[in-house]
């Protein structure tokens, strides 16, 4: 049809822009090779035997009692964590947006709690849970005198996961509540509804898709979580840990592939529901911006119980974090609470320095690459139009739904013997490079999402005018786009660094003795029962993470563009 000409011309224009073209090609290769290919390998391996299609491996895996328990365990845990985190998150969001909290300290506490999941390595809460409530727990044993408290198992993981993930729900739901126009609720109140009635008939129904969204997001997080079940699960195995054990313990890599396919399908389905069904409905119900500030609830009978409840939770979470450095400083937790540096000394004596150096260097390499890559992807997705755009967007978001354990198994199967077992790129496996690539892939979706939302706020014509004045795409990107999304770029840089240095799930399957990583060390020492040393590692890790976030905030505040931009957007 006649439309052929514009397609041909657009293609010609694309080819006339070598920077853009080569960027797209490099991106496509990267995404295909390091996200799609390992997943495809898993799928193919789990349904073939001796080169033929066969469901034999699945049958074997499904016959494993261990696997079936793990599967139902995972679902149960995901459900409990999802419900718990959503309720807790909703409570915090509601109190934050609706209740007049007089004390500044409580507000401050809320901020700390919302920031903690960003700062915290994934298993820190498990560690402190053991310290506080374990067999030699500070609270259970030293304070309450219970000597045989069993914290390991479903309840332990669920508590830890809820406390780890509820801040995510809190932030999501807070954003939604802020967008509800207060006059809707005032109208309902005006017509005679009680405050509780307003909440159940107006606020809650408006929030429903958002609540579903928050539930699914935490459900996915819980299902994909590896470190907490590993550390505090005891005999309660989830899919992620079972896969890990299948690889490292049973050496059954084909079986692990099949299990990984099951886990992947599970998270993928949840992810697709969340992304394409709930997210859209969330925006459909809440479109308007709040027209003016909300009258905060001053009523003591509402205010006091709610804010005390939230403050108590916050203090509890903060307490858990505080117990980590003390865990490292006390001589022998549960028996001898005198201060000593012996755990730190032990740590540094046994290759602690190397672990920090390796983790630090690898994460440091991954972060600029990821930040740049995610900015480029978001730029292409938001501002450009080309054939493979949908593919690039989909794959980079897909990575969000892939649990680290699945990715780890995929990399083992995909790269251990080279691509398609051909030996090509075999050198990659076992090197630091593959760890860096895993870091990149794991952080890419987060960076891309923040880049996309930053870019959507920039008027398309700003870039078009640069293009029109004679800049090629590379020049437009470096001279206009990048400076305008500098903040997002910087936060992508730090987020990647933080996520990488605290990563464990995919890495633990791929790391070779040649590299020591902090997270793996923590896991190892915790497994051995050397909690003091594990805490020493965790303390320094938290310090590093916290310092880099402080540094980022400082840089954004003083060198970021956001201030000038925000002012100009006011006009």
């Amino acid at each position, binding site marked *: 049809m006649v439309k052929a000409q*514009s397609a041909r011309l657009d293609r010609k224009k694309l080819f006339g*822009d070598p920077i853009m073209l080569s960027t797209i090609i490099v991106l496509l290769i990267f995404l295909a090779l390091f996200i799609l290919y390992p997943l495809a390998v898993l799928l193919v391996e789990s349904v073939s035997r001796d080169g033929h299609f066969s469901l034999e491996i699945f049958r074997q895996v499904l016959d494993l009692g261990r696997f079936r328990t793990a599967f139902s365990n995972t679902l149960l845990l995901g459900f409990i964590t999802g419900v718990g985190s959503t309720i807790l998150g909703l409570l915090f969001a509601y109190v934050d947006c609706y209740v007049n909290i007089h004390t500044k300290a409580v507000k401050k506490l809320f901020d700390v709690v919302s920031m903690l999941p960003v700062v915290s390595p994934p298993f820190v809460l498990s560690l402190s849970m053991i310290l506080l409530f374990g067999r030699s727990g500070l609270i259970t044993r030293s304070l309450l005198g219970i000597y045989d408290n069993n914290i390991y198992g479903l309840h332990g993981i669920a508590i830890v996961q809820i406390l780890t993930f509820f801040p995510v729900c809190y932030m999501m739901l807070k954003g939604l509540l802020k967008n509800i126009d207060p006059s809707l609720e005032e109208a309902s109140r005006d017509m005679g509804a009680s405050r509780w009635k307003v909440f159940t008939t107006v606020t809650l129904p408006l929030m429903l898709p958002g609540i579903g969204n928050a539930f699914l997001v935490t459900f996915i997080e819980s299902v994909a979580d590896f470190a907490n079940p590993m550390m505090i699960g005891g005999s309660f195995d989830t899919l992620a840990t079972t896969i890990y054990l299948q690889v490292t313990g049973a050496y059954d890599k084909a079986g692990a592939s099949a299990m990984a396919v099951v886990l992947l399908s599970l998270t993928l389905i949840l992810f697709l529901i969340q992304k394409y069904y709930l997210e859209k409905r969330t925006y459909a119900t809440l479109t308007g911006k709040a027209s003016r500030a909300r009258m905060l609830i001053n009523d003591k009978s509402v205010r006091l119980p709610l804010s005390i409840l939230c403050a108590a939770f916050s203090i509890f979470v903060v307490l858990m974090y505080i117990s980590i450095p003390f865990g490292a400083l006390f001589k022998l937790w549960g028996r001898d609470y005198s201060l000593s540096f012996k755990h730190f000394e032990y740590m540094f004596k046994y290759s602690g320095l190397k672990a920090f150096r390796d983790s630090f260097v690898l994460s440091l390499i991954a972060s600029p690459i990821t930040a740049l890559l995610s900015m480029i992807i978001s730029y292409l997705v938001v501002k450009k139009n080309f054939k493979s755009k949908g593919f690039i967007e989909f794959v980079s978001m897909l990575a969000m739904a892939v649990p680290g354990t699945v990715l780890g198994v995929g990399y083992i199967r995909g790269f251990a013997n080279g691509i398609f077992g051909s030996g090509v790129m075999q050198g990659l496996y076992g090197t630091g490079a593959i760890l860096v690539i895993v870091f990149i892939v794991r952080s890419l979706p987060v960076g891309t999402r923040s880049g996309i939302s930053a870019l959507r706020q920039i008027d398309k014509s700003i870039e*078009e005018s640069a293009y029109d*004045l*004679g800049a090629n795409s590379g020049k437009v990107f470096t001279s206009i786009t990048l400076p305008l999304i500098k903040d997002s770029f910087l936060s992508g840089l730090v987020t990647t660094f933080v996520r990488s240095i605290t990563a464990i799930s995919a890495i633990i399957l791929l790391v070779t003795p040649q590299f020591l990583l902090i997270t793996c060390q923590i896991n190892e020492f915790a497994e051995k029962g050397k909690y003091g040393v594990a805490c020493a590692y965790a303390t320094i890790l938290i310090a590093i993470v916290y310092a880099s976030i402080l540094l980022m905030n400082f840089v954004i505040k003083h060198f970021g563009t956001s201030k*000038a931009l925000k002012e*100009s957007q006011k006009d």
Partner: protein
Amino acid sequence: MQNNSKGVTLDHISKIYKDPKTGKDFYAVNDVCLTIEPGSFVTLLGPSGCGKTTTLRMIAGFESPDVGEIYLGDEAINELTPNKRDTAMVFQSYALFPHYNVFDNVAYGLRLRKVPKDEIDRRVRSILSLVEMEGMESRMTNQLSGGQQQRVALARALVVEPGVLLFDEPLSNLDAKLRVSMRTEIRRIQQTLGITAIYVTHDQSEAMAISDQIIIMKKGVIAQMGSPMEIYYHPSDEFIADFIGEANFLKGTVKRMDGSECVVDVLGHECTVETDTARNAGQECEIVLRPEAIRIAQQGLLPCTVELSCFMGSYQNYHVRVGDTLVKISDSCPINKPIFAVGEQAYISFEKECAHLL
């Protein structure tokens, strides 16, 4: 500044889009042929969705035509990316770079062209004085008013001495007063430099005030092309007559031709209208009358009943009924004329040169 102005030719240009709702293809621009002389000011005018902006963006290179070829001067530019085309665009949202100050915004295009530093300095300053923004070089763009931002955007486009200057509704974000003064300004600068300008707007008074040529577009096709006066007094159909200014339409039957004059029977009364196309007796026709071209008096051509009489300051606004037709009249300088009240009988009349026959 040397004159680098180029003409633009659109040779049977079409652009097809997919309707997002129905999924069907439709012509956003349909077989548009157009020649724009170097140094002229041409306005693409039309209601939203008529294809004017798409046409402009095809000239700039942001969109690719599905049929036809676009020429800049003698050069076919279909395959050129926007940065390789000798055009510069002024955007509706100004699109100033928020992280640069005024000077750096204007210098952006020159720096890309690797112009020596002292020449950049000289050219930026001279163009800023042309748009009356001297002394503001170091301001950030968010410290400027809307009008000032538009001047900077204009300077940024002008300083690269493009063959063609493109305007995409540049004044629609400004308030009414500023709009009027800015359009005079744009016209003055365009004439000083003798640069070719293509201007997109949906505001007919803006188009009239600023253009050498107006091109009215409707549903992707060119409805009429001509000077503002031609379009105003000789609209080619009802849509254009109504779109440009206000118009009244009197239905009638052609009685006879008298040289270049056509005698039309309206409700049994003979009206004479000047026309350049011969008509046959008995043919149905419409007389287009502008509100200010109609006189209302005790005596005249056609009897009418006054239905609205409203003092507007510079004119008296009447709605009168002629037969079944509502006719709007703007009677200027009402102070020394008799005023007709609602319900009164009166007559309307008009000069044959001021009427147009459809």
